[in-house]
């Protein structure tokens, strides 16, 4: 993935969003970094289990990342999506995008998370209940077509 504008990772480990964003700033050409982190909501003690489709996950996220790099003028970026058990408050996903001008980074970051929501093959289980997909997510992704 070294030659991709936007790097992608699927992992169980936590990530350091600040360090990852700082690493996107180099060469004096980056004027803006926009990041999104998604977090586990719920009550203290709840645990979210994130299952995914190994192989397909990486392929889908890379395809979405490449599409973002095609659509906007970006200098770099990173998508990290975690799986496995995650406590309330834990970061699930990081989308970070760097660009010369801030509009590109804002557009690309929101596009990436909107599409990840409907394309990346992850399934959330809260306690013993599988989370239902939301029509709002389909609508958000459709807005980018």
């Amino acid at each position: 993935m070294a030659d991709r504008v936007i790097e992608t990772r699927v992992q169980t480990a936590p990530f350091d969003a600040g360090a990852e964003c700082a690493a996107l700033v180099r060469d004096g050409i980056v004027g803006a970094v926009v990041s999104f982190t998604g977090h586990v909501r719920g009550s203290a003690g709840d645990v979210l289990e994130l299952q995914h489709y190994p192989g397909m996950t990486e392929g889908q996220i890379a395809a979405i990342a490449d599409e973002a790099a095609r659509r906007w003028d970006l200098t770099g970026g990173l998508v990290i999506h975690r799986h496995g058990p995650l406590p309330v408050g834990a970061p699930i996903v990081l989308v970070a995008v760097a660009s010369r001008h801030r509009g590109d980074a804002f557009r690309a970051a929101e596009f990436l998370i909107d599409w990840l929501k409907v394309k990346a093959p992850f399934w959330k289980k809260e306690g013993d209940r599988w989370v239902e997909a939301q029509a709002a997510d389909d609508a958000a992704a459709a807005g980018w077509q």
Partner: protein
Amino acid sequence: MQLRLLYFAWVREALGRGEEVRDFPSGVTTIADVLSALSQYDERYAGAFAAPERLRFALDQVYAGPETPIRDGGELGIFPPVTGG
């Protein structure tokens, strides 16, 4: 016609397995045909696949509709709508 089948989320739990390899007769040519064939084998499949509009499919890790033709040696993922991010 041999397929590697992968199940996720509540589909996996309903079937009691995450993965299997199965052979299908020559009349089974689409994803929808696979669901019908599996539903005839076993009550658990019949239950999990009773409402196919609640299912999504990926053929060789690419999203595919139920009328998509399968290929021998292919990988078919069967799962509910995704909820990541």
